[in-house]
């Protein structure tokens, strides 16, 4: 049962999906397209920061994509199959990667049942292509849109200003009425103020406050008071900074919300770094608001440049578990566009070359990682997660079991658990982690046993 145009049309859930797929047929959208046996796979740069991984079985017409779409097959899977039936020769023969193997292990074998479309619901790839032909913009309509957007932005600014002043009062109340009481009721109190902030369109600030109780409860009891002071203090800094410069993109991102990928790519002020990047690892967190955040941490292997980048995506938890976009340890050359900030970190991939087996070693780390963290804290004092590169050292445990990283020079940093057993018996040549103000969450390390991931199985 080979793959044909009519088979792809039959699989499409609706004409809209085919139309969306037609917009993804540019080869530049697909830095990776490969095949082996009856399998084809590729990586498509969609609207998220992380690329989507797509695999399809050309014999049984099964497919899988890491995008959060509820349509099946999604536009990415349809586009991959469409590209294949149009010109299969552009798919390189390759070894089957591990993530394709993983999909094969989880999938339910067998072809999807043929879709029964209602009369009049005929789907056509040709029609989909026609729709995607670009139509010239209407200057008057564009001007109207812009005016409406400016008006909305003005209203949002006023609403958010009032909300940040409200938040300052709330912060004051939590401190003056006693932090033990705040910690006891943190969940309810934070949820209430977060709801008010959502109403006032300060969505990013609301999410941050909504997640604060979880961060505090994650600390040992004796550290929660200091943790609460640090968290509340950062919020106070942020509200004051934003009111002083509401158009600052860095601050707006922390208070209101992020720019889109397209905004960043179109922004001439967004710093761009073309380099060799290593995927350190991925951190996936399910938030209280029902969203899952997927953060892929990258490290620049070139010296004297922007050291770290994070590709950050959010998708609904109801979309199910999403496979990682990269394999930890994977290296690729790419141009990243960073969201403009005092200490740029969040980025999107502007242009990506194929993965490489480059053997570049990890860059040299400063002798005192805490000094590096203090500098980052001075540049962006409201930031919660700060990446850091650690020099040679060991992971040690106190008699209480609390874990620490200790440099060969004696600098110590508390480390978040769990830690792979091997880490306690390995000499850490270099390590990368994320400091949250209380603990260092290690992501990956170079050791005398090779690369060591701090997520299970990496």
């Amino acid at each position: 049962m080979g793959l044909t145009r009519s088979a792809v049309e039959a699989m499409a859930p609706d004409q809209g999906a085919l139309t969306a797929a037609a917009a993804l047929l540019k080869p530049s959208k697909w830095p990776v397209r490969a095949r082996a046996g009856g399998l084809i796979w590729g990586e498509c740069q969609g609207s998220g920061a992380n690329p989507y991984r797509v695999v399809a079985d050309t014999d049984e017409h099964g497919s899988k994509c890491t995008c959060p779409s509820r349509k099946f097959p999604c536009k990415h899977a349809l586009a991959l199959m469409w590209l294949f039936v149009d010109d299969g020769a552009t798919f390189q023969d390759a070894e089957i990667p591990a993530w394709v193997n993983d999909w094969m292990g989880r999938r339910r074998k067998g072809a999807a049942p043929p879709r029964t479309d209602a009369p009049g619901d005929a789907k056509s790839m040709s029609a989909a292509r026609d729709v995607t032909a670009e139509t010239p913009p209407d200057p008057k309509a564009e001007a109207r849109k812009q005016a409406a957007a400016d008006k909305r932005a003005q209203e949002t600014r006023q609403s958010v200003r009032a909300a940040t002043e409200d938040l300052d009062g709330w912060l004051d109340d939590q401190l003056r009425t006693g932090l033990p009481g705040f910690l006891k009721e943190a969940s309810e109190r934070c949820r209430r103020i977060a709801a008010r902030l959502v109403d006032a369109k300060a969505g990013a600030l609301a999410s941050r406050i909504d997640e604060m109780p979880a961060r505090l409860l994650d600390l040992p009891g004796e550290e929660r008071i200091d943790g609460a002071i640090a968290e509340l203090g950062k919020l106070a800094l942020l509200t004051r900074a934003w009111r002083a410069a509401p158009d600052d993109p860095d601050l707006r991102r922390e208070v209101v919300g992020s720019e889109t990928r397209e905004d960043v790519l179109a922004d001439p002020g967004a710093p761009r770094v073309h380099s060799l990047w290593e995927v350190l690892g991925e951190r996936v967190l399910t938030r209280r608001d029902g969203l899952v955040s997927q953060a892929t941490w990258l490290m620049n292997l070139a010296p004297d440049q922007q050291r770290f980048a994070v590709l950050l995506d959010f998708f609904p938890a109801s979309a199910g578990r999403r496979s990682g976009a990269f394999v930890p340890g994977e290296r690729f050359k790419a141009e990243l566009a960073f969201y403009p900030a005092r200490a740029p970190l969040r980025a999107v991939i502007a242009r990506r070359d194929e993965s490489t087996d480059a053997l570049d070693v990890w860059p040299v780390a400063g002798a005192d990682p805490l000094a590096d963290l203090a500098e980052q804290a001075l540049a962006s004092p409201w930031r919660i997660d700060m990446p850091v590169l650690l020099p040679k050292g060991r992971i040690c445990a106190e008699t209480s079991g609390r874990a620490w990283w200790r440099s060969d020079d004696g600098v110590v940093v508390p480390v978040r658990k769990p830690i792979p057993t091997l880490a306690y018996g390995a000499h850490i040549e270099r390590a990368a982690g994320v400091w949250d103000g209380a603990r260092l969450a290690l992501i990956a390390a170079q050791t005398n046993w090779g690369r060591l991931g701090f997520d299970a199985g990496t």
Partner: protein
Amino acid sequence: MQELEASLARVRSAWMAGRSALDHCPAEWRDAVAGQHGDAGLAALTGHATTVLFRTAPTTVLEPRPLLPALALPVMAEALRPRFRRILSAKGGPSIERHLVDLIAARGRSVHPADWLPSPTDDWVPDLYVPWLDWVRSETPAIDGHGALAVETYDRWSWAERRAELARLRLADPAAALAIIAAKAPSEPAERRLRLLEILETNLSESDAEFLEGLAKDRSERVQAVTRAYLARLGRSSDGADLATELADMVALGKVGLIKRRTRFVIKSLKTSAQNARRRELFTLVSVSALARALGVSEQQLVEAPPDGPADGIEAFAQMMAATGSDAALRALLNGMLADDSTPVSHLRALTSRLSATERQALLPQIMARDAEGLETTLAIAGRELGAMPIAPLLASPTYTALSRLLDQLNVDDPHRASNNTALGAALNRIALLLDAPGATDLVARIGIWGVSPADPKLDLLHLNAALTTETKS
């Protein structure tokens, strides 16, 4: 700095007590946050100062653990590690952790410690991993210069090390191993006494009898049982004649062969399940030599022909022979049962447990040719010597016929497809553990004819086997 620290402590105390902290902060800070919501502003300064100026310190001295020692064999190739991890974490079938670790060791490689480390209770691991076992148990690692294992140096070795070394010594110099075990076993706890005693099974001889007789009244019943079995093998059975007579009444001796008349041990059909249960119990309590005496024959006469009777009785007899039979009687019974097609292959499992690895390896093609029960028995008999069988015996075996049937059903839409798929995966894993690397490669190609994708995870272990190169063990 100390003044600031004291000031921050007062600020903290005020917020803990539920009052404004503005009166407790440095004066210049108070000026900076003066106005509405002063405490919030003060929290900004306090939090930031704590983050930048102060560092957390451990409450005790940090002493790193010793480095994980390197092993005698090289770690498997980096490219194979993801597949290894996937196999190890696969769900839905029986765990193959032990077999997987053995297969890799048999191919002269070790597992990467980031992918797998033994747990402290994993006494089953190959000797190769003894240094890691010591490390995860936080036992004092052996240091160079602790000398050869002897009674005097025994306590300088870790438990896992000394056990592995004693097993090696028992092969090379049985008397030396016995001397150490005899001197040190009494001071070990019961579980370890048992493990030490098991080492004596290799090259068991008359010179071990005196020590074993000394253990006949050991505090541990398990130690006593093993001791009795070993003594029985040496012809020094001490079991009661009355039990042997009771068992003899439940069996019989017949004759087979037209020209050469041979004795056949017959297990009678009994009327009640209680009687059957009692007989199974007696098979574990009576030694072969005592039973032979009760029947008025020699051990060799008991096994002149394959035994006859109900399957559970024959299995119990085979287990009795494995535990207490002499070497000669055990081999005679094994050969007879191997030649007898009507004997279920699973009955051979107990009998082969006392054979050397080389002997068991030589038997595998014959066992596989008879094994129609999913290769469980073949795998058990192979022991640690995995990944060495050529494909030819497999292709002629009932297992391959069953495998072909499962593969035929793979493309048929039937309600049992999911369970067939699981069964196919388990069967392929067992085959993959037995085949040599060319055999594994050959089988992957053959399975491709049925349309199974090379990326199918059911083939993972075959792929891993094919890619593991054989190295001479040091």
